[in-house]
Protein backbone atom coordinates (compact mmCIF):
# COMPACT_ATOMS: atom_id res chain seq x y z
CA UNK A 1 0.00 0.00 0.00
CA UNK A 2 1.32 3.43 -0.84
CA UNK A 3 1.99 5.94 1.89
CA UNK A 4 -0.84 8.27 1.00
CA UNK A 5 -3.37 5.43 0.82
CA UNK A 6 -2.34 4.46 4.34
CA UNK A 7 -2.87 8.00 5.55
CA UNK A 8 -6.28 8.05 3.93
CA UNK A 9 -7.25 4.83 5.67
CA UNK A 10 -6.07 6.15 9.01
CA UNK A 11 -8.08 9.34 8.59
CA UNK A 12 -11.14 7.42 7.48
CA UNK A 13 -10.77 5.16 10.50
CA UNK A 14 -10.64 8.09 12.92
CA UNK A 15 -13.60 9.62 11.15
CA UNK A 16 -15.99 6.75 11.43
CA UNK A 17 -14.79 5.83 14.90
CA UNK A 18 -15.89 9.30 15.88
CA UNK A 19 -19.29 8.61 14.38
CA UNK A 20 -19.59 5.37 16.30
CA UNK A 21 -18.53 7.19 19.42
CA UNK A 22 -21.59 9.23 20.20
CA UNK A 23 -24.29 6.78 21.08
CA UNK A 24 -22.74 4.09 23.25
CA UNK A 25 -22.93 4.84 26.95
CA UNK A 26 -20.08 5.70 29.25
CA UNK A 27 -20.92 3.05 31.82
CA UNK A 28 -18.69 0.44 30.20
CA UNK A 29 -15.73 2.81 30.31
CA UNK A 30 -16.12 3.46 34.02
CA UNK A 31 -16.60 -0.22 34.83
CA UNK A 32 -13.50 -1.00 32.77
CA UNK A 33 -11.46 1.70 34.49
CA UNK A 34 -12.45 0.33 37.91
CA UNK A 35 -11.46 -3.22 36.92
CA UNK A 36 -8.13 -2.05 35.52
CA UNK A 37 -7.39 -0.10 38.71
CA UNK A 38 -8.34 -3.07 40.90
CA UNK A 39 -6.16 -5.45 38.88
CA UNK A 40 -3.16 -3.13 39.17
CA UNK A 41 -3.77 -2.75 42.90
CA UNK A 42 -3.93 -6.53 43.36
CA UNK A 43 -0.77 -6.91 41.29
CA UNK A 44 1.00 -4.86 43.95
CA UNK A 45 -0.66 -5.88 47.20
CA UNK A 46 -2.65 -9.05 46.29
CA UNK A 47 -0.27 -11.59 47.85
CA UNK A 48 -0.38 -9.69 51.16
CA UNK A 49 -4.17 -9.76 51.40
CA UNK A 50 -4.61 -13.52 51.33
CA UNK A 51 -6.45 -14.99 54.35
CA UNK A 52 -4.51 -18.28 54.02
CA UNK A 53 -0.94 -19.23 53.18
CA UNK A 54 -0.90 -19.61 49.37
CA UNK A 55 1.92 -22.16 49.41
CA UNK A 56 1.17 -24.45 52.33
CA UNK A 57 -1.12 -27.40 51.62
CA UNK A 58 -3.67 -28.34 54.30
CA UNK A 59 -5.71 -31.50 54.93
CA UNK A 60 -8.89 -29.69 53.91
CA UNK A 61 -8.78 -31.19 50.41
CA UNK A 62 -11.40 -30.38 47.73
CA UNK A 63 -13.73 -28.60 50.10
CA UNK A 64 -16.60 -27.01 48.19
CA UNK A 65 -17.34 -23.34 48.87
CA UNK A 66 -20.10 -22.71 51.42
CA UNK A 67 -23.54 -22.75 49.84
CA UNK A 68 -25.29 -19.42 49.42
CA UNK A 69 -27.72 -20.18 52.27
CA UNK A 70 -24.81 -20.68 54.71
CA UNK A 71 -23.13 -17.39 53.83
CA UNK A 72 -25.21 -15.01 56.04
CA UNK A 73 -24.71 -17.29 59.08
CA UNK A 74 -20.95 -17.50 58.51
CA UNK A 75 -20.65 -13.74 58.06
CA UNK A 76 -22.57 -13.16 61.32
CA UNK A 77 -20.30 -15.60 63.17
CA UNK A 78 -17.20 -13.89 61.78
CA UNK A 79 -18.39 -10.39 62.64
CA UNK A 80 -19.40 -11.43 66.15
CA UNK A 81 -15.96 -12.95 66.62
CA UNK A 82 -17.57 -16.24 67.63
CA UNK A 83 -15.48 -19.38 67.22
CA UNK A 84 -16.08 -20.89 63.79
CA UNK A 85 -14.42 -23.49 61.56
CA UNK A 86 -11.92 -22.29 58.93
CA UNK A 87 -13.95 -20.74 56.13
CA UNK A 88 -12.85 -21.19 52.52
CA UNK A 89 -15.12 -18.78 50.67
CA UNK A 90 -14.23 -20.26 47.27
CA UNK A 91 -13.40 -23.77 48.49
CA UNK A 92 -10.06 -25.57 48.43
CA UNK A 93 -8.24 -27.40 45.63
CA UNK A 94 -6.83 -30.92 45.42
CA UNK A 95 -3.78 -29.92 47.48
CA UNK A 96 -5.94 -28.34 50.15
CA UNK A 97 -4.96 -24.78 49.13
CA UNK A 98 -7.46 -21.97 49.60
CA UNK A 99 -8.82 -21.00 46.16
CA UNK A 100 -9.79 -17.46 47.22
CA UNK A 101 -6.27 -16.69 48.48
CA UNK A 102 -4.69 -17.94 45.28
CA UNK A 103 -7.11 -16.04 43.03
CA UNK A 104 -6.18 -12.86 44.94
CA UNK A 105 -2.45 -13.52 44.70
CA UNK A 106 -2.40 -14.43 40.99
CA UNK A 107 -2.37 -10.89 39.52
CA UNK A 108 1.18 -10.61 40.83
CA UNK A 109 2.07 -13.05 38.04
CA UNK A 110 -0.59 -12.53 35.36
CA UNK A 111 -0.97 -8.75 35.42
CA UNK A 112 2.69 -7.94 35.97
CA UNK A 113 3.74 -10.16 33.04
CA UNK A 114 1.11 -8.59 30.77
CA UNK A 115 1.87 -5.02 31.80
CA UNK A 116 5.64 -5.58 31.65
CA UNK A 117 5.48 -7.10 28.17
CA UNK A 118 3.36 -4.24 26.89
CA UNK A 119 5.51 -1.48 28.38
CA UNK A 120 8.48 -3.16 26.76
CA UNK A 121 6.89 -3.49 23.32
CA UNK A 122 5.25 -0.05 23.55
CA UNK A 123 8.65 1.53 24.15
CA UNK A 124 10.53 -0.42 21.46
CA UNK A 125 7.62 -0.45 19.01
CA UNK A 126 6.87 3.27 19.14
CA UNK A 127 10.52 4.18 18.70
CA UNK A 128 10.85 1.81 15.74
CA UNK A 129 7.55 3.10 14.37
CA UNK A 130 8.81 6.68 14.63
CA UNK A 131 11.97 5.58 12.88
CA UNK A 132 10.04 3.78 10.13
CA UNK A 133 7.79 6.80 9.64
CA UNK A 134 10.54 9.41 9.44
CA UNK A 135 13.51 7.56 7.92
CA UNK A 136 14.14 7.27 4.19
CA UNK A 137 11.31 5.38 2.48
CA UNK A 138 13.35 2.26 1.77
CA UNK A 139 14.55 2.01 5.36
CA UNK A 140 11.01 2.49 6.59
CA UNK A 141 9.78 -0.10 4.12
CA UNK A 142 12.37 -2.59 5.29
CA UNK A 143 11.38 -2.07 8.92
CA UNK A 144 7.77 -2.73 7.98
CA UNK A 145 8.62 -5.90 6.02
CA UNK A 146 10.51 -7.26 9.04
CA UNK A 147 7.59 -6.50 11.29
CA UNK A 148 5.26 -8.21 8.75
CA UNK A 149 7.48 -11.26 9.00
CA UNK A 150 7.23 -11.38 12.80
CA UNK A 151 3.45 -11.12 12.45
CA UNK A 152 3.34 -14.04 10.01
CA UNK A 153 4.33 -16.39 12.83
CA UNK A 154 1.39 -18.10 14.54
CA UNK A 155 1.26 -16.17 17.81
CA UNK A 156 0.30 -18.80 20.34
CA UNK A 157 2.50 -21.59 18.99
CA UNK A 158 5.49 -19.27 18.63
CA UNK A 159 4.90 -18.16 22.20
CA UNK A 160 4.92 -21.79 23.38
CA UNK A 161 8.13 -22.54 21.50
CA UNK A 162 10.06 -19.47 22.67
CA UNK A 163 9.02 -19.75 26.31
CA UNK A 164 9.66 -23.49 26.53
CA UNK A 165 12.99 -23.56 24.72
CA UNK A 166 14.31 -20.42 26.42
CA UNK A 167 13.46 -21.87 29.82
CA UNK A 168 10.09 -21.31 31.46
CA UNK A 169 10.24 -18.25 33.71
CA UNK A 170 8.26 -15.05 34.14
CA UNK A 171 11.12 -13.14 32.51
CA UNK A 172 11.09 -15.25 29.34
CA UNK A 173 7.32 -14.88 29.06
CA UNK A 174 7.65 -11.09 29.28
CA UNK A 175 10.34 -10.99 26.57
CA UNK A 176 8.44 -13.42 24.32
CA UNK A 177 5.18 -11.50 24.54
CA UNK A 178 7.04 -8.22 24.04
CA UNK A 179 8.59 -9.58 20.85
CA UNK A 180 5.24 -10.80 19.53
CA UNK A 181 3.44 -7.51 20.32
CA UNK A 182 6.11 -5.06 19.10
CA UNK A 183 4.93 -5.10 15.44
CA UNK A 184 1.47 -3.92 16.54
CA UNK A 185 3.02 -0.79 18.05
CA UNK A 186 5.40 -0.24 15.15
CA UNK A 187 2.52 -0.28 12.68
CA UNK A 188 0.31 1.95 14.79
CA UNK A 189 2.95 4.56 15.56
CA UNK A 190 4.18 4.67 12.00
CA UNK A 191 0.76 5.31 10.48
CA UNK A 192 0.16 7.97 13.11
CA UNK A 193 3.55 9.56 12.40
CA UNK A 194 2.73 9.68 8.70
CA UNK A 195 -0.45 11.63 9.39
CA UNK A 196 1.20 13.94 11.94
CA UNK A 197 4.31 14.74 9.92
CA UNK A 198 2.68 17.37 7.78
CA UNK A 199 0.44 19.00 10.36
CA UNK A 200 0.73 22.77 10.83
CA UNK A 201 2.67 22.72 14.09
CA UNK A 202 5.26 20.37 12.61
CA UNK A 203 5.77 22.61 9.60
CA UNK A 204 6.01 25.56 11.98
CA UNK A 205 8.85 23.85 13.86
CA UNK A 206 10.57 23.25 10.53
CA UNK A 207 10.28 26.90 9.64
CA UNK A 208 11.93 27.69 13.01
CA UNK A 209 14.89 25.64 11.81
CA UNK A 210 14.60 22.68 14.17
CA UNK A 211 16.26 19.50 12.98
CA UNK A 212 14.13 16.62 11.67
CA UNK A 213 15.21 14.34 14.55
CA UNK A 214 14.31 16.97 17.15
CA UNK A 215 10.93 17.49 15.53
CA UNK A 216 10.28 13.77 15.41
CA UNK A 217 10.96 13.31 19.13
CA UNK A 218 9.38 16.52 20.42
CA UNK A 219 6.42 17.12 18.16
CA UNK A 220 5.55 14.00 16.20
CA UNK A 221 6.08 11.25 18.78
CA UNK A 222 4.04 12.73 21.66
CA UNK A 223 1.09 13.23 19.34
CA UNK A 224 1.46 9.81 17.78
CA UNK A 225 1.58 8.03 21.12
CA UNK A 226 -2.09 8.29 22.05
CA UNK A 227 -3.26 5.46 19.78
CA UNK A 228 -0.42 3.27 21.03
CA UNK A 229 -1.40 3.84 24.64
CA UNK A 230 -5.03 3.03 23.81
CA UNK A 231 -3.88 -0.10 22.04
CA UNK A 232 -1.85 -1.04 25.14
CA UNK A 233 -5.00 -1.28 27.24
CA UNK A 234 -6.52 -3.81 24.86
CA UNK A 235 -3.27 -5.69 24.33
CA UNK A 236 -2.60 -6.02 28.08
CA UNK A 237 -5.89 -7.90 28.25
CA UNK A 238 -4.81 -10.22 25.44
CA UNK A 239 -1.45 -10.70 27.12
CA UNK A 240 -3.25 -11.88 30.26
CA UNK A 241 -5.22 -14.37 28.14
CA UNK A 242 -2.00 -15.55 26.50
CA UNK A 243 -0.10 -15.90 29.79
CA UNK A 244 -2.92 -17.92 31.29
CA UNK A 245 -3.24 -19.99 28.09
CA UNK A 246 0.47 -20.78 27.95
CA UNK A 247 0.43 -21.84 31.59
CA UNK A 248 -2.71 -23.89 30.95
CA UNK A 249 -0.94 -26.09 28.36
CA UNK A 250 2.21 -26.34 30.49
CA UNK A 251 4.34 -23.88 28.54
CA UNK A 252 4.12 -20.85 30.80
CA UNK A 253 4.47 -19.95 34.46
CA UNK A 254 5.82 -22.76 36.63
CA UNK A 255 3.75 -24.35 39.38
CA UNK A 256 3.21 -23.83 42.29
CA UNK A 257 3.12 -20.07 41.53
CA UNK A 258 -0.42 -18.82 42.07
CA UNK A 259 -1.48 -18.08 38.47
CA UNK A 260 -4.98 -18.20 37.00
CA UNK A 261 -4.20 -20.44 34.00
CA UNK A 262 -2.31 -22.95 36.13
CA UNK A 263 -5.18 -23.03 38.63
CA UNK A 264 -7.69 -23.74 35.85
CA UNK A 265 -5.47 -26.51 34.48
CA UNK A 266 -5.06 -28.09 37.92
CA UNK A 267 -8.83 -28.14 38.41
CA UNK A 268 -9.69 -29.29 34.87
CA UNK A 269 -9.81 -32.99 35.70
CA UNK A 270 -12.15 -32.38 38.62
CA UNK A 271 -14.69 -30.61 36.40
CA UNK A 272 -15.80 -33.86 34.78
CA UNK A 273 -16.57 -35.23 38.26
CA UNK A 274 -18.52 -32.12 39.20
CA UNK A 275 -15.76 -30.49 41.30
CA UNK A 276 -16.07 -27.13 39.57
CA UNK A 277 -14.77 -24.57 42.06
CA UNK A 278 -10.96 -24.90 41.65
CA UNK A 279 -11.28 -24.05 37.92
CA UNK A 280 -14.35 -21.84 37.81
CA UNK A 281 -13.23 -19.05 40.15
CA UNK A 282 -9.84 -18.28 38.55
CA UNK A 283 -11.64 -18.32 35.18
CA UNK A 284 -14.13 -15.74 36.41
CA UNK A 285 -11.18 -13.62 37.49
CA UNK A 286 -9.62 -13.79 34.00
CA UNK A 287 -12.96 -13.19 32.33
CA UNK A 288 -13.69 -10.03 34.35
CA UNK A 289 -10.14 -8.69 34.17
CA UNK A 290 -9.68 -9.03 30.41
CA UNK A 291 -13.15 -7.66 29.77
CA UNK A 292 -12.22 -4.70 31.97
CA UNK A 293 -9.12 -3.92 29.92
CA UNK A 294 -11.10 -4.24 26.67
CA UNK A 295 -13.87 -1.94 27.92
CA UNK A 296 -11.35 0.58 29.24
CA UNK A 297 -9.43 0.58 25.96
CA UNK A 298 -12.62 0.97 23.98
CA UNK A 299 -13.72 3.91 26.11
CA UNK A 300 -10.33 5.59 25.74
CA UNK A 301 -10.53 5.15 22.00
CA UNK A 302 -13.92 6.85 21.84
CA UNK A 303 -12.77 9.72 24.03
CA UNK A 304 -9.71 10.19 21.89
CA UNK A 305 -11.78 10.19 18.68
CA UNK A 306 -13.98 13.00 20.02
Amino acid sequence: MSESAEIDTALLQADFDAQLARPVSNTLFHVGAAIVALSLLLMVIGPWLTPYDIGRPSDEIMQPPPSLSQVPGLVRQMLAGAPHPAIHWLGTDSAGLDVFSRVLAAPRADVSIAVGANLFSLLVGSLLGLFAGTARPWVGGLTMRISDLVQAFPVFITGMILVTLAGRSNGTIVVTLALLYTPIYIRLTRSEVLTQRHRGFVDAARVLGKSEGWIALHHVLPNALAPAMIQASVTIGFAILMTAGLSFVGAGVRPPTPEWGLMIAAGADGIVQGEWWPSVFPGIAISITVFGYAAFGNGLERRHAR
Partner: protein
Amino acid sequence: MLAFVGRRLLTAAIQLVALALIVFFAIRLLPADPVARLAGQDASRESYLSSQHALGLDRPVMVQFGAYIGVLPGSSGLLEGDFGRSWVTGDPISQEIRRTLPITLELITISFVLAFVISVPLGMICALRPGGIADRMTFGYSLFAGSQPEFWWGLLFIFFFFSVLGWAPPPLGRLNPMVTPPPVVTGFITIDSLLAGDGEALWDGLHHLMLPVATKVFVLSGPIVKMVRQNMTRVMTSDYVLYQQASGISPGRIALTALKNALAPTLTLLGILYGYILGGAVLIETVFSLGGIGQYAVSAVLAFDYPAIQAVVLVIAAISLFVYLALDVAHAMLDPRLQG
Protein backbone atom coordinates in the same frame (compact mmCIF):
# COMPACT_ATOMS: atom_id res chain seq x y z
CA MET B 1 -5.95 -8.91 -11.60
CA LEU B 2 -3.42 -11.58 -12.56
CA ALA B 3 -0.56 -9.23 -11.76
CA PHE B 4 -2.16 -8.50 -8.39
CA VAL B 5 -2.47 -12.20 -7.52
CA GLY B 6 1.02 -12.91 -8.81
CA ARG B 7 2.57 -10.15 -6.74
CA ARG B 8 0.79 -11.33 -3.60
CA LEU B 9 1.79 -14.96 -4.23
CA LEU B 10 5.40 -13.92 -4.63
CA THR B 11 5.36 -11.98 -1.35
CA ALA B 12 3.81 -14.95 0.43
CA ALA B 13 6.44 -17.31 -0.99
CA ILE B 14 9.28 -15.03 0.14
CA GLN B 15 7.73 -14.80 3.58
CA LEU B 16 7.53 -18.59 3.85
CA VAL B 17 11.17 -19.03 2.88
CA ALA B 18 12.16 -16.44 5.47
CA LEU B 19 9.99 -18.16 8.07
CA ALA B 20 11.65 -21.51 7.38
CA LEU B 21 15.08 -19.95 7.85
CA ILE B 22 14.16 -18.09 11.02
CA VAL B 23 12.47 -21.07 12.66
CA PHE B 24 15.38 -23.38 11.94
CA PHE B 25 18.06 -21.07 13.31
CA ALA B 26 16.03 -19.45 16.10
CA ILE B 27 15.26 -22.71 17.88
CA ARG B 28 18.94 -23.65 17.70
CA LEU B 29 19.95 -20.32 19.19
CA LEU B 30 17.74 -20.77 22.23
CA PRO B 31 19.42 -22.20 25.33
CA ALA B 32 17.65 -25.57 25.24
CA ASP B 33 19.36 -28.94 25.11
CA PRO B 34 17.20 -31.40 23.17
CA VAL B 35 19.77 -34.17 23.54
CA ALA B 36 19.64 -34.06 27.34
CA ARG B 37 15.87 -33.97 27.08
CA LEU B 38 15.66 -37.04 24.85
CA ALA B 39 18.51 -39.06 26.38
CA GLY B 40 17.40 -38.28 29.93
CA GLN B 41 18.90 -35.80 32.38
CA ASP B 42 21.27 -38.30 34.02
CA ALA B 43 22.34 -40.18 30.90
CA SER B 44 25.98 -41.30 30.75
CA ARG B 45 28.43 -39.41 28.60
CA GLU B 46 28.41 -42.22 26.02
CA SER B 47 24.66 -42.44 25.69
CA TYR B 48 24.49 -38.63 25.47
CA LEU B 49 27.00 -38.64 22.62
CA SER B 50 25.29 -41.49 20.83
CA SER B 51 21.91 -39.75 20.99
CA GLN B 52 23.56 -36.59 19.78
CA HIS B 53 24.95 -38.51 16.84
CA ALA B 54 21.66 -40.29 16.15
CA LEU B 55 19.85 -36.93 15.98
CA GLY B 56 22.54 -35.54 13.70
CA LEU B 57 23.22 -32.75 16.19
CA ASP B 58 26.98 -33.44 16.24
CA ARG B 59 27.22 -31.99 12.74
CA PRO B 60 27.89 -28.31 12.04
CA VAL B 61 24.71 -26.22 11.96
CA MET B 62 25.05 -25.46 8.26
CA VAL B 63 25.25 -29.19 7.46
CA GLN B 64 22.16 -29.75 9.60
CA PHE B 65 20.44 -27.00 7.65
CA GLY B 66 21.50 -28.60 4.35
CA ALA B 67 20.01 -31.89 5.47
CA TYR B 68 16.84 -30.10 6.58
CA ILE B 69 16.19 -28.42 3.25
CA GLY B 70 17.42 -31.49 1.38
CA VAL B 71 20.43 -30.32 -0.62
CA LEU B 72 22.73 -32.99 0.82
CA PRO B 73 23.08 -36.01 -1.47
CA GLY B 74 21.07 -39.05 -0.51
CA SER B 75 18.55 -37.33 1.74
CA SER B 76 15.25 -35.69 0.93
CA GLY B 77 14.22 -32.53 2.70
CA LEU B 78 11.97 -29.52 2.77
CA LEU B 79 12.49 -28.74 -0.92
CA GLU B 80 10.84 -32.06 -1.79
CA GLY B 81 8.11 -31.45 0.77
CA ASP B 82 9.68 -33.82 3.29
CA PHE B 83 9.61 -32.58 6.89
CA GLY B 84 11.83 -35.41 8.16
CA ARG B 85 11.15 -37.76 11.02
CA SER B 86 10.09 -37.02 14.56
CA TRP B 87 12.92 -37.27 17.10
CA VAL B 88 10.54 -38.80 19.61
CA THR B 89 8.52 -41.38 17.67
CA GLY B 90 10.70 -41.78 14.57
CA ASP B 91 7.60 -41.53 12.36
CA PRO B 92 7.57 -39.30 9.28
CA ILE B 93 6.23 -35.91 10.32
CA SER B 94 4.27 -35.41 7.09
CA GLN B 95 2.17 -38.41 8.06
CA GLU B 96 1.45 -36.99 11.53
CA ILE B 97 0.46 -33.66 10.02
CA ARG B 98 -1.79 -35.30 7.46
CA ARG B 99 -3.57 -37.03 10.35
CA THR B 100 -3.86 -34.07 12.75
CA LEU B 101 -4.32 -31.07 10.44
CA PRO B 102 -7.78 -32.00 9.05
CA ILE B 103 -9.14 -32.31 12.61
CA THR B 104 -8.11 -28.72 13.34
CA LEU B 105 -9.23 -27.34 9.97
CA GLU B 106 -12.62 -29.03 10.34
CA LEU B 107 -13.18 -27.58 13.83
CA ILE B 108 -12.09 -24.11 12.84
CA THR B 109 -13.85 -23.91 9.49
CA ILE B 110 -17.19 -25.06 10.89
CA SER B 111 -16.86 -22.64 13.81
CA PHE B 112 -15.86 -19.83 11.50
CA VAL B 113 -18.78 -20.28 9.12
CA LEU B 114 -21.30 -20.56 11.97
CA ALA B 115 -19.85 -17.53 13.78
CA PHE B 116 -20.04 -15.52 10.56
CA VAL B 117 -23.64 -16.55 9.85
CA ILE B 118 -24.66 -15.52 13.36
CA SER B 119 -22.61 -12.33 13.48
CA VAL B 120 -23.66 -10.70 10.20
CA PRO B 121 -27.32 -10.16 11.17
CA LEU B 122 -26.25 -9.01 14.65
CA GLY B 123 -23.81 -6.49 13.21
CA MET B 124 -26.46 -5.27 10.76
CA ILE B 125 -29.04 -4.73 13.48
CA CYS B 126 -26.50 -2.57 15.29
CA ALA B 127 -25.72 -0.49 12.25
CA LEU B 128 -29.33 0.08 11.23
CA ARG B 129 -30.07 1.98 14.42
CA PRO B 130 -26.76 3.10 15.96
CA GLY B 131 -27.11 3.88 19.64
CA GLY B 132 -30.39 1.99 19.94
CA ILE B 133 -30.91 -0.55 22.67
CA ALA B 134 -30.11 -3.47 20.34
CA ASP B 135 -26.88 -1.77 19.25
CA ARG B 136 -25.75 -1.19 22.82
CA MET B 137 -26.54 -4.72 23.95
CA THR B 138 -24.84 -6.29 20.94
CA PHE B 139 -21.85 -4.01 21.35
CA GLY B 140 -21.47 -4.98 25.00
CA TYR B 141 -21.79 -8.63 24.01
CA SER B 142 -19.12 -8.40 21.31
CA LEU B 143 -16.72 -6.64 23.66
CA PHE B 144 -17.29 -9.36 26.25
CA ALA B 145 -17.16 -12.36 23.91
CA GLY B 146 -14.02 -11.03 22.27
CA SER B 147 -12.11 -10.91 25.55
CA GLN B 148 -12.79 -14.33 27.01
CA PRO B 149 -10.48 -17.23 27.93
CA GLU B 150 -11.82 -19.86 25.53
CA PHE B 151 -10.23 -22.81 27.32
CA TRP B 152 -12.12 -21.87 30.45
CA TRP B 153 -15.43 -21.54 28.59
CA GLY B 154 -14.79 -24.98 27.11
CA LEU B 155 -14.42 -26.41 30.60
CA LEU B 156 -17.52 -24.56 31.75
CA PHE B 157 -19.51 -26.01 28.84
CA ILE B 158 -18.18 -29.47 29.74
CA PHE B 159 -19.33 -28.99 33.31
CA PHE B 160 -22.87 -27.95 32.35
CA PHE B 161 -23.53 -30.03 29.24
CA PHE B 162 -21.64 -33.18 30.18
CA SER B 163 -21.32 -33.40 33.99
CA VAL B 164 -24.62 -31.83 34.95
CA LEU B 165 -27.00 -32.29 32.01
CA GLY B 166 -25.43 -35.28 30.29
CA TRP B 167 -26.23 -33.91 26.79
CA ALA B 168 -22.67 -33.91 25.48
CA PRO B 169 -20.25 -36.83 25.18
CA PRO B 170 -17.18 -36.92 27.46
CA PRO B 171 -14.43 -34.54 26.23
CA LEU B 172 -12.13 -37.36 25.22
CA GLY B 173 -11.62 -37.07 21.51
CA ARG B 174 -13.16 -36.71 18.12
CA LEU B 175 -15.20 -39.96 18.10
CA ASN B 176 -16.57 -42.43 20.62
CA PRO B 177 -14.05 -45.34 20.82
CA MET B 178 -16.96 -47.75 20.21
CA VAL B 179 -17.74 -46.15 16.84
CA THR B 180 -15.74 -47.37 13.85
CA PRO B 181 -14.19 -44.35 12.14
CA PRO B 182 -15.06 -43.97 8.45
CA PRO B 183 -12.31 -44.87 5.94
CA VAL B 184 -9.91 -41.95 5.61
CA VAL B 185 -10.34 -40.06 2.35
CA THR B 186 -9.99 -36.40 3.29
CA GLY B 187 -9.30 -36.78 7.01
CA PHE B 188 -12.33 -34.65 7.83
CA ILE B 189 -14.61 -36.97 9.82
CA THR B 190 -17.74 -35.11 8.71
CA ILE B 191 -16.90 -35.43 5.00
CA ASP B 192 -15.48 -38.96 5.21
CA SER B 193 -18.55 -40.32 7.00
CA LEU B 194 -20.79 -38.66 4.40
CA LEU B 195 -18.73 -40.20 1.58
CA ALA B 196 -18.97 -43.61 3.23
CA GLY B 197 -22.69 -43.12 3.88
CA ASP B 198 -21.96 -43.89 7.55
CA GLY B 199 -24.75 -42.19 9.49
CA GLU B 200 -23.57 -43.39 12.88
CA ALA B 201 -20.05 -41.96 12.51
CA LEU B 202 -21.46 -38.71 11.10
CA TRP B 203 -23.80 -38.28 14.06
CA ASP B 204 -21.15 -39.23 16.62
CA GLY B 205 -18.59 -36.92 15.00
CA LEU B 206 -21.00 -33.98 15.07
CA HIS B 207 -21.97 -34.82 18.65
CA HIS B 208 -18.32 -34.60 19.70
CA LEU B 209 -17.88 -31.33 17.79
CA MET B 210 -20.88 -29.72 19.50
CA LEU B 211 -19.15 -28.21 22.54
CA PRO B 212 -15.80 -27.26 20.97
CA VAL B 213 -17.64 -25.53 18.11
CA ALA B 214 -20.02 -23.78 20.52
CA THR B 215 -17.05 -22.47 22.50
CA LYS B 216 -15.25 -21.26 19.38
CA VAL B 217 -18.38 -19.65 17.90
CA PHE B 218 -18.99 -17.75 21.14
CA VAL B 219 -15.44 -16.40 21.32
CA LEU B 220 -15.20 -15.67 17.57
CA SER B 221 -18.52 -13.89 17.32
CA GLY B 222 -17.07 -11.00 19.37
CA PRO B 223 -14.57 -9.67 16.85
CA ILE B 224 -16.72 -10.57 13.82
CA VAL B 225 -19.76 -8.67 15.11
CA LYS B 226 -17.50 -5.70 15.79
CA MET B 227 -16.09 -5.77 12.23
CA VAL B 228 -19.50 -6.06 10.55
CA ARG B 229 -20.90 -3.31 12.76
CA GLN B 230 -18.06 -0.89 11.97
CA ASN B 231 -18.10 -1.52 8.24
CA MET B 232 -21.87 -1.42 8.03
CA THR B 233 -22.02 1.86 9.97
CA ARG B 234 -19.44 3.35 7.68
CA VAL B 235 -21.38 2.34 4.58
CA MET B 236 -24.69 3.54 6.00
CA THR B 237 -23.33 7.07 6.43
CA SER B 238 -21.92 7.21 2.90
CA ASP B 239 -23.15 9.58 0.22
CA TYR B 240 -24.62 6.89 -2.00
CA VAL B 241 -26.79 5.54 0.80
CA LEU B 242 -27.93 9.09 1.55
CA TYR B 243 -28.75 9.44 -2.14
CA GLN B 244 -30.70 6.19 -2.13
CA GLN B 245 -32.63 7.35 0.92
CA ALA B 246 -33.40 10.66 -0.74
CA SER B 247 -34.61 8.79 -3.82
CA GLY B 248 -37.16 7.00 -1.67
CA ILE B 249 -35.73 3.51 -2.04
CA SER B 250 -37.03 1.19 0.67
CA PRO B 251 -34.74 0.66 3.70
CA GLY B 252 -34.64 -3.09 3.06
CA ARG B 253 -33.22 -2.66 -0.44
CA ILE B 254 -30.72 -0.09 0.75
CA ALA B 255 -29.57 -2.44 3.48
CA LEU B 256 -29.01 -5.19 0.91
CA THR B 257 -26.75 -3.09 -1.32
CA ALA B 258 -25.02 -1.69 1.75
CA LEU B 259 -24.37 -5.21 3.03
CA LYS B 260 -22.38 -6.19 -0.03
CA ASN B 261 -20.15 -3.14 0.29
CA ALA B 262 -19.80 -3.62 4.03
CA LEU B 263 -18.82 -7.28 3.75
CA ALA B 264 -16.05 -6.76 1.21
CA PRO B 265 -13.59 -5.15 3.66
CA THR B 266 -14.49 -7.67 6.38
CA LEU B 267 -13.11 -10.42 4.11
CA THR B 268 -9.54 -9.21 4.59
CA LEU B 269 -10.04 -8.99 8.35
CA LEU B 270 -11.57 -12.47 8.38
CA GLY B 271 -8.45 -13.76 6.63
CA ILE B 272 -6.27 -12.39 9.41
CA LEU B 273 -8.63 -13.79 12.03
CA TYR B 274 -8.62 -17.26 10.45
CA GLY B 275 -4.85 -17.51 10.62
CA TYR B 276 -4.93 -16.23 14.17
CA ILE B 277 -7.37 -18.84 15.42
CA LEU B 278 -5.70 -21.62 13.44
CA GLY B 279 -2.59 -21.00 15.53
CA GLY B 280 -4.70 -20.58 18.65
CA ALA B 281 -6.62 -23.86 18.29
CA VAL B 282 -4.11 -25.39 20.70
CA LEU B 283 -6.17 -24.49 23.75
CA ILE B 284 -9.55 -25.78 22.69
CA GLU B 285 -8.02 -29.00 21.32
CA THR B 286 -6.29 -29.59 24.64
CA VAL B 287 -9.50 -29.10 26.59
CA PHE B 288 -11.45 -31.56 24.42
CA SER B 289 -8.51 -33.89 23.58
CA LEU B 290 -9.35 -33.57 19.90
CA GLY B 291 -5.90 -34.61 18.68
CA GLY B 292 -5.50 -31.86 16.09
CA ILE B 293 -2.36 -30.08 14.96
CA GLY B 294 -2.52 -27.76 17.97
CA GLN B 295 -2.20 -30.63 20.40
CA TYR B 296 0.52 -32.09 18.19
CA ALA B 297 2.34 -28.76 18.51
CA VAL B 298 2.10 -28.86 22.30
CA SER B 299 3.57 -32.34 22.51
CA ALA B 300 6.32 -31.46 20.01
CA VAL B 301 7.28 -28.33 21.93
CA LEU B 302 7.26 -29.96 25.36
CA ALA B 303 9.37 -32.87 24.02
CA PHE B 304 11.88 -30.55 22.25
CA ASP B 305 11.10 -32.39 19.00
CA TYR B 306 12.74 -29.81 16.70
CA PRO B 307 11.79 -31.28 13.28
CA ALA B 308 8.15 -31.48 14.35
CA ILE B 309 8.23 -27.92 15.76
CA GLN B 310 9.67 -26.59 12.48
CA ALA B 311 7.03 -28.41 10.45
CA VAL B 312 4.09 -27.25 12.55
CA VAL B 313 5.11 -23.59 12.40
CA LEU B 314 5.62 -23.74 8.64
CA VAL B 315 2.39 -25.57 7.90
CA ILE B 316 0.28 -23.25 10.02
CA ALA B 317 1.97 -20.13 8.66
CA ALA B 318 1.54 -21.41 5.09
CA ILE B 319 -2.17 -22.10 5.53
CA SER B 320 -2.71 -18.75 7.24
CA LEU B 321 -0.94 -16.93 4.42
CA PHE B 322 -2.91 -18.85 1.82
CA VAL B 323 -6.31 -18.17 3.40
CA TYR B 324 -5.39 -14.53 3.90
CA LEU B 325 -4.33 -14.29 0.28
CA ALA B 326 -7.47 -16.01 -1.02
CA LEU B 327 -9.78 -13.71 0.96
CA ASP B 328 -7.75 -10.68 -0.05
CA VAL B 329 -8.14 -11.65 -3.71
CA ALA B 330 -11.86 -12.14 -3.17
CA HIS B 331 -11.96 -8.66 -1.63
CA ALA B 332 -10.14 -7.21 -4.63
CA MET B 333 -12.60 -8.92 -6.96
CA LEU B 334 -15.54 -7.34 -5.10
CA ASP B 335 -13.80 -3.96 -4.99
CA PRO B 336 -11.81 -3.34 -8.19
CA ARG B 337 -10.34 -0.13 -6.76
CA LEU B 338 -7.91 -2.27 -4.77
CA GLN B 339 -6.28 -3.92 -7.76
CA GLY B 340 -4.14 -0.95 -8.69
